[in-house]
């Protein structure tokens, strides 16, 4: 089962590699990973998408929490949460028909065209992983995807739930 693990850690050199190290050393899966400093620049927040049964997830959270640089860890999937991922996708626009089909889909998915070129559009889209997957499939049917880049999921618990030092 897919899990979203959120980690609050020291924004210190080597902290990220220690966390990644736990996953590789212990054979856990990393499906995606998203990390950046928080509003407090001495801290970083990392979101990892992983999968495994309850026992594996319990071990992942315990082993990561054991790292000296880690302050807090939460499995967001345990409760209501918001998850978002951003994708930039560059698609070929060879004909007028393709251009308008792409534009129509961009509107339907509430994406945005952020760069226009003679032969391609670059589109920005934000949403859940499923939505981004669906959009990518639609684009590949409408035209040719030249390249794409995704941030990986980041997430927060809904309501009162929070991860603070």
């Amino acid at each position, binding site marked *: 089962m897919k899990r979203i693990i959120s980690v609050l850690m*020291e924004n210190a050199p080597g902290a990220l*590699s*220690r966390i990644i190290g736990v996953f590789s*050393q212990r054979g856990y899966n990393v499906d995606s990973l998203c990390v950046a400093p928080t509003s407090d620049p001495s801290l970083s927040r990392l979101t990892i998408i992983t999968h495994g049964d309850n026992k594996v997830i*319990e071990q992942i959270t315990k082993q990561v929490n*054991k790292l000296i640089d880690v302050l807090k860890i939460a499995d967001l999937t345990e409760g209501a949460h918001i998850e978002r991922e951003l994708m930039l996708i560059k698609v070929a626009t060879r004909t007028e028909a393709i251009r308008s089909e792409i534009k129509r889909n961009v509107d339907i998915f509430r994406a945005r065209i952020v760069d226009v070129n003679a032969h391609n559009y670059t589109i920005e889209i934000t949403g859940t992983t499923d939505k981004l997957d669906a959009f990518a499939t639609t684009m590949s049917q409408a035209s040719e995807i030249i390249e794409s880049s995704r941030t990986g999921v980041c997430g927060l618990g809904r309501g009162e739930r929070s991860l603070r*030092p």
Partner: protein
Amino acid sequence: MMSGAAMVVEALKDAGVSHVFGYPGGAVLDIYDALFAQDAVKHILVRHEQAAAHMADGYARSTGKTGTVLVTSGPGATNTITGIATAYMDSIPMVVLSGQVPSMHIGEDAFQETDMVGCSRPIVKHSFLVKRTVDIPHAIAKAYYIANTGRPGPVVVDLPKDLVNIQEQHPYSYPQSISMRSYNPTLKGHKKQIKKAVQVLEHAQRPVLYVGGGAIAANAADKVVALAERLCAPVTCTLMGLGAFPGPHAQSLGMLGMHGTLEANKAMHNADCILALGARFDDRVTNNVAKFCPHATIIHVDIDPASISKTVNAHIPVVGSVDNVLEQLLEEVSLPAAQSEKLADWWQQIEQWRERDCLQYQSDSDQIKPQQVVQSVYRHTQGQAFVSSDVGQHQMFAALYYLFERPRQWINSGGLGTMGFGLPAAMGVQVAHPEATSVVITGDGSIQMNIQELSTCLQYNLPIKIISLNNRALGMVRQWQDMNYKGRHSQSYMESMPDFVKLAEAYGHVGIRVEHPDELEGAMEQCFSLKGRLVFVDVKIDQNEHVYPMQIKSGAMDDMRLSKMERT
């Protein structure tokens, strides 16, 4: 104001370090120069950096204090890796100070450059690459704090050469105390969990205390005895826990697990309540986890939440230091005066298992048996020596036949199983306890993995007693080949053994060869009466002796072979 190098030494003093085990080299010459100028911190010059780590480890295991290693960059640092991994697996507090190439050359593949923080990352509790000279005292203080609090472990401090330059002066300030927002180990057990545990313990008909290295790390041996005696419960120790409960105590069942005693493994399998104290349900204990102790309610006390329910599900997890949790349990447990009567049936059953006398062995008039050698060492040291071991058959014989009475008396590489650990560990013990008898029980394979340290022993006059069970083979490998590979002894035989007696003499020590059972007692007498000298006793033992009891692969705890012919 002082130089970075002086800060390193000053910080070691402030951290209470008495001994450093190390080896100089380019990147740490400034630090060695600072060491030269003082004598509060004593330096032991090893012959190989791996041994420095094992010595610091033996020092730490025998005292509870953090062991300290100082090595240069590159090969000096990488040579310590096995020693760090050994300490990590057994949760031993250690600080490794490694030199590093100058900051401006990091990443250039400079001479003797290795990413030590990266190399050691999976086998340390934490590590630091120091970036500024003024940060040195704080990094070192933090390293000692992290190494010896919570679940202990090794910490690496990587020191670039330019930071320790003796020419530059900086202000020195050692922190009075350390507090870290990201690191606050839980020491006391949760009250609700304690209540639950107490209830199960009070109602248990067939309880067992299963005691691991965590009880020793927490200095909780007295409380283990107190609780065991109050509960009238049998106690079994893991390989790492030996000594946390006195081996000769009437309630001791000895070691459990792969080579555990029949009574220990039987008691575990038939228990209705297992109180695990700082033990981690290692695969060398549990055998097949699916068949593990089917009747027991498991109370698991451990300072590391990640150890709880990792392999075997705990019914009542208690996160905390074994010492604190035992204190809480002792406050709460109230038992009727008739507790011993309540457990009478259980003890009767245990006595039946004990009667089998699973440690008996066939002695021989022509060949020396390894078991009798260990028993002889036990007698000649009145059971009081510090005993270090290497890894293999001799390690199991030592664990089974030397009844350890006190914690920190038995020093061995349990988790990683590092051959070559024994001699340097025994040296670390001797450095920490100059007046005590420090014995290493080893084998002809293991001793050759760090034999160069005989030279260090001469330099520092470390009168270790080396008892080598020489079977001219890699005994444990050979045993497995006999059992599982139809006796095909692939690469487990060494064709050209050195003359260990001459070797000991060449290093300036005393060597004694023992080939016949009749010579054994005299040799031991001589060995232990030669105070102040290192004695290497090379004992030619029966090559075909196997370690028994032994669990049968994929079975339950109590599925065991008791000898070559017999099984449970």
